[in-house]
């Protein structure tokens, strides 16, 4: 397990370095960052002052590593709009996004895994086909649009939930549903496919021949193996939920990290955007690494891969 662990962690560290380079590089997409920082009214000498003040006159690799070095200590620079440390601004918004993402993730698993298992028991049955149909139709609905429609129906017409904000826990209901539903079809299909594969295996036949209760075979013997691909997919989906919440947060006017990123983009507050991209990427790298480690723990054969 130890060589696998080391190798996997080295890869994760390299990927983290590469995503940092991308988010650092964004600063240069729009051209000379000093000119961008100086704004439209900036004169040539202002640009020069800014270039020196922000260290933009230094060689690029030097700038990159000093940026990363600071980021590692939690110093993401200063927001151009708030004139406050970026780290503090994000720390204030991150919990909202994490609550939203985690709740949506749990809901997605609670719905899609049991549904996938039920569908896998009898492939081709009415239940199975209904679940697959649901998945096809569900995938066709854009989440931001579903959010708006739910606001109209449950918030405006029936007044069951607040139409925006997260001051009360009721405010989380619709965003969590909308954020989670989009991950459900993929998770459901993966559970179903994994279970169908496993249920055809010889050891399941043996378990049945021994007369074990069916529920035990399904949930203990089969699920343990069927869950392997699901763990990886779940990690990916959770990461995508956190970054996808940018759309949902703007629909429901939730003051999370996603909305902060969007607003910062609209007011060209690049340090905030860079930091958020970096944080989301690092969360994703961590999640997928953990998923790989869980898989290696569940199935020792993977450790040599």
């Amino acid at each position, binding site marked *: 397990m130890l060589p696998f662990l080391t190798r996997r962690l080295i890869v994760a560290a390299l990927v983290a370095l590469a995503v940092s380079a991308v988010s650092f590089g964004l600063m240069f997409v729009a051209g000379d960052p000093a000119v961008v920082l100086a704004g439209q009214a900036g004169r040539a000498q202002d640009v020069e002052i800014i270039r020196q003040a922000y260290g933009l006159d230094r060689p690029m690799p030097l700038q990159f590593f000093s940026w990363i070095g600071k980021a590692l200590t939690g110093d993401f620079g200063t927001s151009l709009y708030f004139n406050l440390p970026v780290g503090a601004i994000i720390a204030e918004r991150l919990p909202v996004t994490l609550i939203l993402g985690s709740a949506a993730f749990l809901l997605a698993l609670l719905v899609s895994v049991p549904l996938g298992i039920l569908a896998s028991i009898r*492939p081709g049955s009415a239940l199975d086909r209904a679940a697959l149909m649901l998945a096809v139709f569900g995938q066709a609905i854009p989440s931001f649009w579903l959010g708006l429609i739910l606001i109209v129906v449950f918030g405006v017409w029936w007044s069951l939930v607040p139409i925006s904000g997260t001051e009360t826990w009721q405010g989380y209901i619709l965003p969590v549903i909308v954020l989670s539903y989009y991950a459900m079809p993929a998770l459901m299909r993966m559970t179903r496919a994994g279970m169908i594969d496993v249920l055809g295996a010889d050891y399941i036949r043996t378990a049945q021949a021994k007369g074990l209760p069916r529920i035990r075979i399904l949930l203990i013997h089969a699920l343990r193996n069927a869950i392997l691909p699901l763990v990886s997919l779940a990690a990916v989906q959770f990461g995508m939920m956190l970054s996808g919440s940018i759309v949902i947060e703007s629909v429901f006017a939730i003051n999370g990290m996603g909305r902060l990123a969007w607003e910062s983009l609209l007011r060209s507050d690049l340090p905030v955007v860079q930091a958020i991209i970096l944080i989301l990427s690092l969360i994703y790298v961590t999640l997928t690494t953990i998923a790989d480690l869980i898989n290696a723990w569940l199935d020792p054969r993977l450790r040599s891969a």
Partner: protein
Amino acid sequence: MTMLDLDGRLLQRRRLWRRINASVGIRLGGVLLALIFFIALFAPLLSPHDPIAQDLTRRLLPPFWHASADLAHPLGTDHLGRDYLARLLHGSQVSLGIGIGVTLLAGAIGTMLGLMAGYFGGRVDMLISFVITTRLSLPIVLVALAAVALGGASLRTLAIVLSLLLWDRFAVVVRSATQGLRNREFVQAAVSFGASHLRIMLCSLLPNLRNILIVVATLEVANVILLEAALSFLGLGARPPTPSWGLMIAEGREHILFDPWLIALPGAALCLLILAVNLLGDGVRDALDAKAS
């Protein structure tokens, strides 16, 4: 015990169902998609009005199912008095154009990377796999938004940015398919003829990837259309007055209380298009699977 009978009768039934599902999906999705293609091609002829002509005296007219509707505008008008039916019909051009254009470009990039990784293996594979992992680790919506914002919001920037970002699925699938093909006899034969690497990749390997590429491309078109709509909805994609469905939903948002049909209609159009593409994609995949087994 049904779980035991997976082979034999049940397997047969399953395969039959799969084939029926596949053909229903292909037909339904195909017909729907053909219809939308037709609309996109002939939008200027089908539309009763110019999609960007404003008429502030006829703002926010309701669609035909309201009593006060004006039948000259069957689906009403938006906040600037533009005919909503005309905008909806022209919106199909934006969605299909971006969806197909981006998929082709991204598909070319991803296929090339996947082919090289799968064919050469070793260090090349390691490097390309690393690039793929890095790309997968980036929050796609946010990076696309940032790149579009910095490059100046427009449909063209959006198309370029999405093409440079959405090649991942192609690369992953092509890479593993190529690995499976690399040691087959016909590839080895080409090698022993002394064919160049490029020739082997393009003439021996690529034609054999056709089926997989069709499936991935179809499903990717749906993905691209959804992303374009989401980015335009957030104001960092299509610019007004372009009739993009995502942008129309954003514009309708301010009238969500009294005129919710302004957001309901373009969203429904999006759903229909995505459904058509997905039905077709799933159907083709199932049909190919059934043929393979």
